[in-house]
């Protein structure tokens, strides 16, 4: 659980950078066997996290309807609605 939270906090960019660093370290070939196994495992889990991050969001196209100063709702948005462009508060 704690780990999961941590994964949320780190940005995709940071993971990508980490992944590149691991690839680089492994390709240099100067790691001990233990270190390279560790790097391998870390790299694989990071790439898994990256893929998860890429697939996390669900496709959702919604329209915001503001109903008052603090009131609003969302409706599915259809491009073909051809609705009126005027939406005042």
């Amino acid at each position, binding site marked *: 659980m704690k780990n999961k939270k941590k994964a949320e906090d780190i940005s995709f960019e940071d993971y*990508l950078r980490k992944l590149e660093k691991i690839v680089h370290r492994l390709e240099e070939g100067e790691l001990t066997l233990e270190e390279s196994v560790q790097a391998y495992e870390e*790299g694989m889990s990071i790439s898994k996290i990256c893929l998860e991050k890429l697939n996390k969001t*669900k496709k959702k196209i919604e329209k915001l309807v503001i109903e008052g100063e603090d009131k609003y709702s969302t409706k599915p*948005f259809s491009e073909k609605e051809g609705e009126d462009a005027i939406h005042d508060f």
Partner: protein
Amino acid sequence: MNNYTESKIYTVSKLNKYIKKLFENDYNLQDVWILGELSNFKLHSSGHMYFVLKDKESQIRCVMFRGNNSTLRFMPGDGMKVKVRGDVGVYEKRGEYQLYVKEIVEAGKGELYLAFEKLKEKLKDEGLFSEEIKKKLPLIPQNIAVITSSTGAAIRDIITISLRRFPNLSILVVPSLVQGTSAAKEIAKKIDFLNCHFKGLDFIIVGRGGGSLEELWAFNEEILARSIYNSKIPIVSAVGHETDFTISDFVADLRVPTPSAAAEMTIPDKNNLLDNINVSKSKISRAIKRNIELKTENINSLCANLKYQGPENKINQYFQYIDEFIARLNSRIRHQVELYEERVKKDAQRLDSLSPWAVIERGYSICRKVSGKEIVKRLEQIKVGENIEVIISDGKILSKVEKKEAVSN
């Protein structure tokens, strides 16, 4: 005609100089804006521009020197309605007055253009455009909002392109007026609203498709500029065409030339990212495989080394050592034996010289009893008539004792 005096007669150049001074000293003629239509426009090879500014009833010659016209945003042409700013002065050589133009603005855009420039300067001085305060957009946006007209091509383009690049994206469409007098206020309010209720948004695209300067004007208004500046959520400004620049563009965290470019530039291509990750993955797999191969090779060569250093080799070495030792021992013993042989030989020689035979050789002889072979040293050992043998160097003489005679010394 008769009452002129000599002192009132001017030369032509003096007169023109005087008139020129008059013009120059009249502030009503300096730094003025004049509205008119361009005609007879000529761009000289020197870079200076010559033209006439006219209205229905009148006209004035104008010159705009190279130093002033280099900052023009458009190429003036005949028939254009323009506003020009300049000083009215006298061209002494021809005794003509003309307008020395410093600035030309297309008349239709004039007011707005001036307002734009003024607001731009003001907000710039306040630091609203400063690069340091611009927020960075995340590489993988997940939730974005688009404030624009819900009917225009802009929203369609943004949605289509965004989803093509990143199929699982959450887009919140916030319909808004994008032109007209209340548009700026409405867009600003919606930015504030999103900041209040949708803090998790990765960024907001604010924009509209192309249009005239008037149509795009909402994006040049201060209220919208301030709302963009105050937004905690990064703002992408996507207004009009490539060539249109608005105040919103300057304040926004990212300016993109068109609404479709907003999607192209802010939404990553998911396939590219997937490829990147997969390439990294296979690189990691390859690298670890190679690492393990290298280590295996290493172990193999260590094993070979170990064998070389191992007990088998050591034993062989001892064998060799022992062999060598035995050889040394042998040679030592041989040497010793030789030494003994030598000594024995020497002793034998010495023994030889002591041998009784050597004495006998010199003429002595040994007398022995035949029976018992007892050497006869004294008379009492034998009796008369007993058989004795006398040994000499080359044989023995058998004799019989006839008489015993003692020696008296």
